[in-house]
């Protein structure tokens, strides 16, 4: 057992509404530029919510012909782009067959999405189980020729944090040398939009001003804005990264997880379980509230969720809650559902890389229920950022928090 070895992120691949690289995404995050717009992919006239963060075209990875790439199912395209970019960024792509590379992929509703997408294009696979032969993660392992294990995990919006936590453990125990981990989601479809809409979870008041629709912590918020995309990271031990002189974006320093045990959809009004996840993560990282430089909040722009998380942050950080900068980047990105935690891990890395904290945009009038925190309102702030918390909470009452540490 080699538990406790520091694990670094050494590669990043992404496609999201703000960009198809860390640099492009970071520029837009720090400029407070939203990626939300009117959905034009299908007819939304009968839907209450008509806006989303969309990824139009997933780029063709180097070495692929556009024709071959176009033949992949869209989720496979997204995972392939993100995974190959992350491995290239880390320097492992050309050596990937020489080491044990595993994959832990956050992906919660892949069959629902696939069955619907297939049906829309005239397919019948939902009626013919023989056609369902492999998951996205197993396809990716085979496509890349990786020799390590591959697993799908899901905790709804917290999926990406669970994926990174599992990958970290695999590396610490020596089960793999390197691990691809993160999450992908492509939920913006007629069925996905209608299902969330009928849960009354989505913003419906600002279909005409989509860039104003996602407004975490704002008094006039009315629900979240769906979004899509993915982020995959390459994880390896600090020792491995240092030995080959690789760039380290961040250390995955600590992880905490808890459950509300209250309701499948509605967050508990008791802030203790969320705060417990935050405290566990800080303890696992060997850090404390006074050392936290930034909290990337889960805050999705729902009335109940943002207020509950505000209470939990105050409980977990105590007197430091009023001093530690907090923002929700979902004002710009929308809510990437299963890929949200991975997206926000990247937002924390953007903060490390630029020594600046991305803002909560559209925060015009702070909800009194969300007071008591040091909100980064509407404009990024320049300041030293060495340790960040990434909160992600999901349906099923699943609460997670990841501590990320800048590599000096």
């Amino acid at each position, binding site marked *: 057992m080699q538990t406790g070895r520091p694990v670094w992120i050494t590669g990043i691949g992404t496609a999201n509404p703000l960009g198809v690289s860390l640099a492009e995404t970071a520029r837009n995050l720090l400029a407070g530029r939203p990626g939300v717009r009117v959905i034009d992919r299908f007819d939304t006239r009968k*839907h209450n919510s008509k806006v989303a963060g969309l990824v139009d075209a997933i780029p063709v990875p180097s070495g692929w012909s556009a024709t071959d790439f176009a033949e992949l199912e869209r989720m496979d395209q997204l995972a392939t782009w993100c995974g190959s970019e992350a491995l290239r960024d880390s320097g492992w792509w050309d050596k990937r067959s020489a080491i044990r590379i595993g994959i832990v992929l956050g992906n*919660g*509703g892949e069959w629902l999405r696939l069955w619907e997408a297939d049906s829309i294009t005239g397919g019948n696979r939902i009626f013919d*189980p023989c056609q369902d032969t492999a998951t996205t993660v197993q396809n990716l392992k085979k496509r890349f020729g990786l020799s390590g294990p*591959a697993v799908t995990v*899901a905790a709804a919006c917290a999926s990406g944090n669970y994926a990174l936590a599992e990958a970290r453990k695999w590396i610490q*125990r020596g089960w793999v040398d390197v691990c691809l981990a993160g999450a992908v989601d492509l939920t913006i479809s007629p069925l996905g939009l209608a299902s969330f809409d*009928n849960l009354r979870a989505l913003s419906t008041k600002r279909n005409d001003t989509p860039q104003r629709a996602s407004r975490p912590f704002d008094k006039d918020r009315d629900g979240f804005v769906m979004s899509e995309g993915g982020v995959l990271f390459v994880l390896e031990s600090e020792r491995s990264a240092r030995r080959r002189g690789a760039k380290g974006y961040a250390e995955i320093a600590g992880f905490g997880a808890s*459950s509300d045990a209250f309701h499948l959809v509605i967050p508990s009004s008791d802030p203790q379980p969320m705060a417990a996840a935050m405290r566990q993560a800080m303890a696992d990282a060997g850090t404390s509230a006074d050392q936290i430089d930034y909290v990337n909040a889960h805050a999705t722009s729902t009335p109940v969720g943002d207020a509950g998380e505000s209470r939990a942050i105050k409980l977990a950080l105590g007197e430091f809650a009023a001093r530690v900068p907090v923002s929700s980047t979902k004002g710009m990105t929308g809510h990437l559902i299963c890929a949200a935690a991975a997206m926000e891990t990247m937002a924390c890395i953007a903060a490390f890389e630029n020594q600046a904290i991305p803002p909560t945009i559209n925060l015009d009038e702070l909800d009194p229920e969300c007071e008591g925190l040091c909100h980064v309102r509407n404009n990024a702030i320049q300041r030293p950022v060495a340790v960040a918390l990434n909160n992600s909470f999901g349906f099923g009452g699943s609460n997670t928090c990841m501590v990320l540490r800048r590599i000096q």
Partner: protein
Amino acid sequence: MEEQREILAAAVVSAWASVCLPQAEIERLRPQPGPTYRKPLSPKTLRFADDQTVAGMSALLHAIHNRGWHDRSFADWGVIGVPRFLGRTVTASNIHRSQADPAFSISPHIIPNQCLHSISGAVSVALGIHGPNFGVGGGPQAVSEGLVTGLSVVAELRIPGLWIICTEFDPEPVPEPGGQPRNAPIVHAAAMAIEGSASGISLHLYRQSSSISHAGSVKNLAAFLLHPKTEPRWQCAMDGIGVVELITTAQ
């Protein structure tokens, strides 16, 4: 002579049960799919749950009952749900309805109840579990993915125990457009309580270049758990690591 094997992780299955149910029986079981734990389930608990969740809860309640844990608290435990192809019939029905009405006819319960996290979430609420809860697998390799992940979670020893609930249809439902199956699908479920040290069935993950190639199925796992003393060993391969093995030990 036995092949040289390196143990990567080990734990004990301290309580277990399995069920095998025709899908047609699920509705009858939905309000209370097994023996009562502490108090009867609220009628709302499984009202909109997927059939695999109901079967998983049934196996879980039987495992608690078989072990005599009626008063034990699982508040600080964790739970992982390991389904395969969750939600096929419900999604078929919703896709069919969406052709007439793409918005208002769609169930709001799809996302909470037909996704990979749904079984673990429902169990967490039903048993009052405040530790980690998440879903694993979802596809053909689900059983090996779930067991390896369970061992990874328990090996950390931050929680005293973990429930692993594996479910699948075999045969899979072949739905009519409206969602009703045109065949007679059977749902299999296995529930296992995993602890770092206890008496029970040993669970190991070995690094081994093995001739075993099958990723395991809930159907054969459930059969093993039904009569673990008759067949003392159950194995499945986890591609990229080695072999997951359950061995009955003397108690």
